[in-house]
């Protein structure tokens, strides 16, 4: 029997597209085709966005749709208010100003480092309603489930008059953010630096875009991944040597991601020197998912690197990347194409290793970078820094971490945490209880903001040595391993010299001597480039450092 009368006359299945048509209708006298006049952007936003909308705003790691955010903050809150913002990265003052003025009410985000004090204060004061913290890829995932945006505000370098967009090296997560709105009858508005007749290539097709507006200034870009080698310390060089010998060489790490920091910059700069002396070229570090780090230039020039896939661009590296097409992912036009979503996916499933620095770790290896009184969120580290249960394919390094002969046993992704035993001024890194717990309580978070969980950590590197945490399932033995390299922190003080000896013999920990490394060898002269100028030289003048990194 077929039910025929049910809801025949009444239900509409096209409410979303009808609602979109109505909004677009409101601005028809304001716009010129798909172009919103620069000086009428605020007016347009007030008509295209509605109270209570879910709005995605770029807010990426590097690229900021700064013209749109500065315009959003000028909206009359009597006309549009209580927006639900969805942002990868809360970076600019106006990202939070919208909450002060009542234009926005709620936020779901991934990273808030540059505004971590303000957002903590606003949560405490009840000026902002926190949805939740996410890793990048979780947030993008929710854009298709329960955080589907009504409006996407994005930034591009260029557009043509049809609304095709060129985002070039700084494509980042724009395609993903746009997709969620474009294919769900949302409204996509892109600010562009200029409108041209012909784009170098199309990164986002015009059928995904509703409106474009020429910004008053080029969008803001942060050079977040540039590290001046001048600041690399001897200890970081020692740790880099241990990492190369005791982890990369030992397990045959060919594909990897380096988390941001001076520790990893030191590793990159030691490939053409220390790693070369070990005869490791071609055997390690061949395929990377990484932003275009200037500190990788010497390794690329020396023939270590087969490929690099990027999350985003890096200010100053554009010409170098274009001149090294065999290494980077570039379009037909020759300029870099980055994609944070795909890079995070690759970093999760398709690499042997993730390595990052941590600020605090407990005796179980749980790792956190929080500062009390601040809410900084996560970014991409937890996504890279865990052992993905869904992985099925095997590589040498992954398989090398299998510790049991059980027929169902499998390998593991290498997740390495690096820290010196003390942060500056007597703040021990190894603690009984993470500050993340206080942050959870203070900010009323659902879970404590742990960056990497101990059960995923396979290796810990301090200035004392390496703990091969993956080798043991026993909680007390893992605790011993951590204590044996935790120096004179309270956790380190509980280590028993006898058990340290035993762990060394079993190969569960390794001190520099065990790896054939003399501490006195760890000198700055080992760095392939000792300062920004030398990086420029390595690049043959192609690398163009941003002003703040120049010393000349």
């Amino acid at each position, binding site marked *: 029997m077929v039910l025929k009368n049910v809801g025949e006359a009444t239900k509409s299945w096209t409410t979303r597209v009808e609602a979109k048509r109505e909004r677009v209708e409101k601005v028809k006298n304001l716009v010129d085709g798909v172009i919103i006049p620069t000086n009428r952007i605020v007016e347009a936003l007030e008509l295209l966005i509605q109270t209570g909308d879910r709005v995605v705003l770029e807010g990426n790691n590097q690229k900021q749709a700064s013209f749109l955010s500065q315009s959003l903050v000028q909206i009359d809150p009597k006309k549009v208010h209580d927006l639900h913002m969805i942002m990868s990265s809360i970076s*600019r*003052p106006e990202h939070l100003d919208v909450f002060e003025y009542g234009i926005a009410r709620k936020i779901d985000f991934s990273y808030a480092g*540059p505004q*971590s004090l*303000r957002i903590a*204060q606003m949560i405490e*004061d009840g000026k902002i309603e926190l949805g939740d913290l996410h890793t990048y890829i979780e947030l993008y995932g929710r854009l298709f489930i329960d955080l589907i945006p009504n409006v996407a505000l994005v930034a591009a370098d260029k557009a043509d008059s049809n609304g095709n967009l060129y985002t070039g090296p700084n494509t980042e997560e724009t395609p993903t953010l746009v997709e969620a709105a474009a294919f769900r009858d949302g409204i996509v508005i892109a600010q562009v630096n200029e409108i041209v007749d012909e784009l170098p290539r199309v990164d986002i097709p015009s059928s995904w875009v509703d409106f474009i507006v020429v910004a008053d200034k080029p969008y803001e870009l942060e050079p977040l991944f540039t590290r001046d080698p001048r600041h690399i310390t001897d200890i970081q060089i020692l740790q880099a040597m241990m990492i190369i010998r005791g982890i990369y060489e030992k397990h045959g790490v060919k594909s990897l991601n380096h988390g941001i920091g001076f520790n990893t910059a030191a590793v990159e700069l030691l490939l053409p020197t220390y790693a070369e002396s070990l005869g490791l070229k071609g055997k390690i570090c061949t395929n990377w998912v990484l932003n275009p780090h200037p500190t990788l230039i010497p390794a690329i020039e020396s023939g270590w690197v087969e490929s690099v896939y990027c999350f985003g661009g890096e200010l100053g590296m554009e010409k170098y990347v274009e001149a090294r097409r065999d290494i980077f992912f570039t379009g037909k036009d020759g300029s870099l194409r980055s994609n944070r979503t795909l890079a995070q996916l690759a970093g999760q499933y398709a690499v042997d290793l993730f390595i990052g620095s941590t600020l605090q770790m407990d005796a179980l290896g749980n790792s956190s970078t929080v500062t*009390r009184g601040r809410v900084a969120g996560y970014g991409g580290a937890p996504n890279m820094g865990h052992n993905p249960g869904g992985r099925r394919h095997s590589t040498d390094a992954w398989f090398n971490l299998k510790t049991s002969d059980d027929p169902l046993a499998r390998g593991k992704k290498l997740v390495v945490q690096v820290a010196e035993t003390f942060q500056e001024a*007597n*703040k021990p890194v190894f603690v009984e209880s993470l500050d993340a717990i206080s942050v959870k309580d203070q900010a009323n978070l659902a879970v404590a903001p742990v960056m990497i969980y101990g059960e995923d950590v396979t290796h810990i590197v301090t200035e004392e040595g390496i703990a091969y945490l993956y080798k043991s399932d026993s909680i007390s033995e893992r605790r011993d391993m951590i204590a044996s390299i935790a120096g004179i922190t309270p956790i380190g003080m509980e280590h028993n010299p006898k058990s340290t000896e035993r762990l060394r013999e079993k190969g569960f920990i390794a001190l520099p001597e065990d790896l054939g490394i003399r501490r006195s060898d760890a000198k700055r002269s080992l760095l392939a480039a000792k300062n920004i100028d030398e990086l420029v030289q390595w690049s043959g003048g192609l690398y163009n450092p941003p002003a703040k990194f120049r010393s000349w």
Partner: protein
Amino acid sequence: MKSAFLFPGQGSQYEGMLNDLPDDPVVKEILEASCEILNTRLELLHSKKALSTTKAVQQCLLISSVSTYKLFEKEGLYPSYVAGHSVGAFGAATASGVITFEEALKLVTLRGELMENTCDEGYGMAVVLGLDEYQITEIVNKLFLESEPVYVSNRNAPTQVTLSGSLIGLQKVLDYVKTHGATAAHFLNVSTPSHCPLFNSVSEELLKELDKLELRRPKIPISSNSTSRLLMQADAVKEDLAKSICHPVRWHDAVNLLFETGTRLFVEMPPGEVLTKLAQHAFSEVRTMSISKNSIEDCMYVMKN
């Protein structure tokens, strides 16, 4: 580029400091007005003897910082934000137009007198370097004695924290921290236990006095001592001016907040460069200047461009 003017607190004063102010009719006017309001002569205000009292210190700091601020005002050079450390908050509030200079001078005079009269000798402050506020708070709580109270007061930097209370109690804590992780720990040259509950009564009296005035809405947002939020209402400023003397100065957070709002230029009013150094150390990408070190001409030049 967003800028913030910083107004220093106790510690930066020195003998004859008012003679070193820029030579300008605006400054002279303020100096003369101050002498008239306080019924005294300039030499008596900043003599060595006078500056041994917190009252004169506070008066001189206010006069010095506000008179210099007025020179920027005269040129039409306004900062995006202001912030003052401890008594400096009164200079900041004056700059922001919440209170007049005369009202401020009378208030800091009262503040100084109340502070001197509330605690007898045997109280003071100390500074500890190398430990963060949580580590120090744990230690202070552990060693706390009602009879010789010690409180954690100002958070000037992540590992630069002051303590306030009884000298005997302070000595105990100093001895302890020196062998438990502090890189340095010593008494400060002040004779009052500022920014702790011992001054609750001072705060109440100040509030009564402030209640009598008609405060105006701040023209320039003020980064607050006690809450490290931006104050944009007269009532909030009033509360901060009264409350802060018995609460810790969250200076690092107050400056951090300005950094997050986009401030990239910090200019410190005279005297000294204490706040300048703190800001530069905390936020390496900002530009910091002090009138004392960089000269007012240079500071004005940077503000103009």
